[in-house]
């Protein structure tokens, strides 16, 4: 904002790489200077990543984590979006249900584990349930908010053209609320990714989260711990980027500039 001149195109790549390089140097030298035996250096982490890839462990774990996210998140979307649309459409209904939602929402999915285990036992279904919980609330909130912020003009125009209630919901309210719903879906996806990793550290025995815990427990392989963490970060970022692409396609078309 207050620079000497506008950054050039090449700088878009230069600066992040420079920052990353600086970070790696600091990391490398800290490990060297403190003489730690346990905490890995960047090089050993790199070797660790290669090792994980070679052993095919990484692909399996990534696949497992993604699978759980897909099912849990998918379920949250299928249940949450229609529910949110209904609640947004019928404010009295929302008013009745909202307090319950607001009390359940701050309860970390992790805290649900004991209850999840009662219903689902230990293993995959419990983890998927946790993902569902984590994604469900942001989606409902976004859908409700999206519907209630549809301008009255659109509803009136829809009615003017003789649309029934259901048609109105489908042809006017839903498309109009879409940008906001998409933002909520993206945020929920990020949360789903966080929850799946956390859940895997506790309740199952495969996946990236489990890899983190297991690497430490079976031999203090901190190089693998950090390697797994980086993979988690990168995967999460890729999911987010992919989703933003999706948003851009729709939002720019509709001219909603504030789909931040």
């Amino acid at each position, binding site marked *: 904002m207050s620079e000497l001149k506008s950054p050039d195109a090449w700088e878009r790549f230069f600066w992040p790489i420079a920052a990353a390089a600086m970070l790696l140097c600091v990391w490398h030298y800290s490990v060297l200077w403190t003489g730690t035996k346990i905490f890995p250096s960047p090089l050993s982490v790199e070797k660790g990543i290669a090792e994980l890839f070679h052993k095919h462990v990484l692909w399996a774990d990534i696949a497992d984590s993604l699978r759980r996210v897909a099912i849990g998140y998918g379920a949250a979307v299928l249940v949450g979006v229609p529910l949110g649309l209904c609640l947004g459409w019928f404010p009295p209904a929302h008013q009745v249900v909202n307090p319950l939602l607001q009390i359940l929402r701050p309860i970390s999915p992790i805290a649900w584990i004991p209850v999840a285990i009662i219903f689902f036992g230990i293993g995959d279904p419990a983890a998927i349930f946790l993902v569902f919980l984590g994604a469900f609330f942001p989606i409902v909130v976004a859908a409700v908010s999206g519907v209630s912020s549809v*301008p009255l*003009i*659109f509803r*009136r*125009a829809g*009615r*003017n*053209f*003789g649309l029934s209630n259901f048609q109105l919901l489908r*042809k*006017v309210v839903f*498309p*109009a609320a*879409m940008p906001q719903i998409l933002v909520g879906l993206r945020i929920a996806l990020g949360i789903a990714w966080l929850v799946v990793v956390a859940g895997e550290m506790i309740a199952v025995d495969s996946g990236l989260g489990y890899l983190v815990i297991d690497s430490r427990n079976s031999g203090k392989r901190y190089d693998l711990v950090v390697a797994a963490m980086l993979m988690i970060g990168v995967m999460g970022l890729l999911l987010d980027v992919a989703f933003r692409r999706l948003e851009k396609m*729709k939002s*720019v*078309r*509709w*001219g*909603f500039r504030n789909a931040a």
Partner: protein
Amino acid sequence: MSLAQAGLAATPNGYKLRAKQLGMIYYADSKSVAALEDINLDISDGEFICLVGPSGCGKSTLLNLMGGFLSPSSGSVTIDGEAVTGPDQRRILVFQERGVFPWLTVEGNIGFGLSKLPRAERESRIAHYVQLVRLQGFEHSYPSDLSGGMKQRLQVARALAVNPDILFLDEPFGALDSITRVIMRGELLRIWQTERRTIVFVTHDIDEAVQLADRVVVLSSRPARIQEILNIDIPHPRNISSSRYLELRDELLKQIGLAYEI
């Protein structure tokens, strides 16, 4: 062109729209505010009526009542002899801004009310109205690519596509710059003369009213009553420097109570 084709055939009881002793009272907190009082208005088929009045006087309320978006506290509105009880495809409202659906293309918007028609007819109608409002070349564009004037033309096209009897326009050019506004007035008149409908047009712009309307209905400030109805007896195209035009304009300014020397 026969009278019927020009849309000037007489309706059964002679009037297209009749408002009888229309009144509207709003309730806010525990107070009641009378927005409209004792509105009596008869509009003939194919007429161009302008509603003018000071800001906030209730012009939009009257329009919404006539369109069936609000229920009157007293009195009634009948169109073609039928009481108005709700919104209907036969009378379309065009809004000041943001009325077009941003997720549909130009074609999509114009075709919005046409889903019950067979495809061939729908497509030919859409093409016809794209031509009429001069948006050729933009059929597949989204509203975000259009200028303000173009968006309003799109709204008009969408409204006309369903063949309504009456068009209600609520300050449709209010959000446009003054040059575009002048152009849009010409466009509207051209369209109206090509495809005649009854038009009820709300504006706070005196010149606009005199340039467009057959009759101008002046509303007083709240609670709004019909203060005066002016007959604009100049034929189109109207010369805005002619003495008759200026006379009528002055009369209108006087009615609204504005001094005309700044």
